[in-house]
């Protein structure tokens, strides 16, 4: 992977990831998340994981986020924009985040491996769709099915909690 490509894609992800939180307009937030996902897809592709990259674009950036946008547009957008920022809470959260990242930086700075240049990945010329399929139906069969149950729980939960009760 060329370093230039890595830094560009990472910067894209980080900047737009921050934009998701900073933007007061929910639609702008959601669109920033789409761009952040595109950066992630680019990183996957640069690691030769083309299938994962394409799925990332199709499913997350495409289907999920578009659906998300529709839902956001059904809500009252102005309410969020009008909401005032609680500066005490904001400062507290920012302080915790800064301390956490400072600590991470110190730890990683002392790490021997972090100072070495990235070892080039062995070129993998594999049919990754085939491999993922084999894994999902082979040794990762159980988690795969349990995630099915997990999604069922989410579906039931959303319907029950958002349904209007008849009175």
């Amino acid at each position, binding site marked *: 992977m060329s370093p230039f490509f890595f830094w560009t894609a990472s910067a894209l992800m980080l900047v737009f990831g921050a934009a998701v939180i900073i933007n007061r307009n929910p639609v702008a937030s959601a669109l920033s998340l789409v761009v952040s996902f595109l950066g992630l897809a680019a990183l996957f592709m640069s690691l030769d994981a083309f299938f994962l990259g394409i799925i990332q674009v199709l499913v997350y950036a495409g289907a999920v986020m578009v659906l998300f946008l529709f839902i956001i547009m059904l809500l009252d957008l102005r309410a969020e924009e009008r909401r005032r920022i609680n500066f005490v809470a904001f400062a507290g959260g920012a302080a915790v985040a800064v301390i956490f990242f400072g600590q991470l930086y110190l730890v990683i700075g002392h790490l021997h491996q972090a100072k070495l240049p990235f070892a080039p990945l062995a070129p993998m010329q594999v049919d990754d769709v085939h491999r993922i399929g084999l894994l999902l139906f082979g040794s990762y069969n159980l988690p795969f099915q349990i995630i099915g149950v997990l999604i069922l729980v989410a579906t039931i939960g959303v319907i029950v*909690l958002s349904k209007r009760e008849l009175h």
Partner: protein
Amino acid sequence: MSYLELLRLAAPEAIVVLTAFVVLTIGLVTGRREAGDTPAATAGLGALVAALGLAIAAATIVRLPGHATLFHGMLVVSPLNSLFQVIVLVLAFFTVILARGERLLPNKGEYLAMILLATVGLMLLIGSEELLMIFIGLELTGLSLYVMTAFDKASQTSAEAGLKYFLFGSMASAFTLFGLSLIYGFTGTTSLAAIGPRLAEQALPPLLFVGIVMTLIGFLFKIAAAPFHLWAPDAYQGAPVSTAGFIASGSKVASFIVLGKILLIGFGPVSGSADWHGLIAGWTPILAVLSALSILIGNLVALVQKNVRRLLAYSAVAHGGYTLLGLIAGGRAGFSATLFYTTIYAVTLVGAFGVVGFVRRENGGDDLADFAGLRARSPLLAGCMAIFLLSLAGLPPLAGFFGKFYLFSTALRAGANHGLLWLVALALFGSLISLYYYLIVLKVIFLDENAQATPAVARYDFEMRADYLPKMTLLVLAGAVLLLGIIPGTLVARILASFG
């Protein structure tokens, strides 16, 4: 591996999932009244099917082979795992019965299905010794419990509790996932049994400690240890009573067993030491500090609570602190003391929440004032509550006494020169404080006069014939707490034997 083998070993989980489908279908086809309440047929039949499914699953676990491992530990059948899966199923069974006595929730079918699916998550948490599967189990349990917490749509506190629980929970999960990815990056494996040797053979970089600490956050959140406990008071107070009972019992038991396995099997080589004179870096000192913090914060804040459910929540924080003592002591003895204590605690709390549920339904609230004169209205409930609270306080001859005795004595014997004496002394001090606030609740129940007019007095025990089953359940639970206190050896021997 063959699919048939997978199906055979995962049969208990599969049975519970299928039962959840059946319960959902019952809720769907028996129709709904316009009033929003669940028809009695749905609630009754659904609860019956759910209880039956849980019983069948427990019977299936008993018939599993003694030892088996699938996919490098994703599903492990062992006497220890089977024992605790059965315990979780029993706790879910009691939750289903207590949910029956609850004020009619809308969508009872979906509620019961959520209890069952949460139980599947707990069974997977217990039965797995692989990081990926543990994380999925954690999420499955978490998601079901978030939804259950917010289930009472008529109440604003329920919605608030659900949202808080969800936000805290997803944040903790994110940290855990980050930590797990770091550990995977360093060791190249997700199997707990393989992580231990890899950690032992290489010099430990600081980043690995970051990974371990971040992994711990998700589990400390689940057991509501001190800095991660902020969701607990709201969730215990706002959630439907049976959900609060389940969060405090089943979820806690499963979290402690999986936390113990991760720490003792996976991170065993980096345990360090929390001895007063011989502090060694590792996860033990971290847990010791959090345990001390939990005991102090939980007990001190519980002193000023006016709501019984909030009081139970803060006491849960303190009990989480006590239970961590066993893991800090480490080894087989420490782990079994932790498991014994958390089991006893779970049984007691399901019962206590059962009593709270009854009082709430009659009086419409669960503040201390609502318990005034409970003795006159229902001697049965008052007696059960006395047993549960005194066991929580740790008075002999109840189960809580022996649990604490076993836990504290194990911790005392663990370190060289009684190095953990400082923590045990703190825990004893905490128990002393806790006796005060449990006795306040009992004073209100037994000595205070009922604020309401006298006609309510006769009403209580006689009108509730319909709740025969939940009341019998409370009696059974109180009996269990008493019995486990008199002959604790049976359960302790089982736990010790299951280590094999």
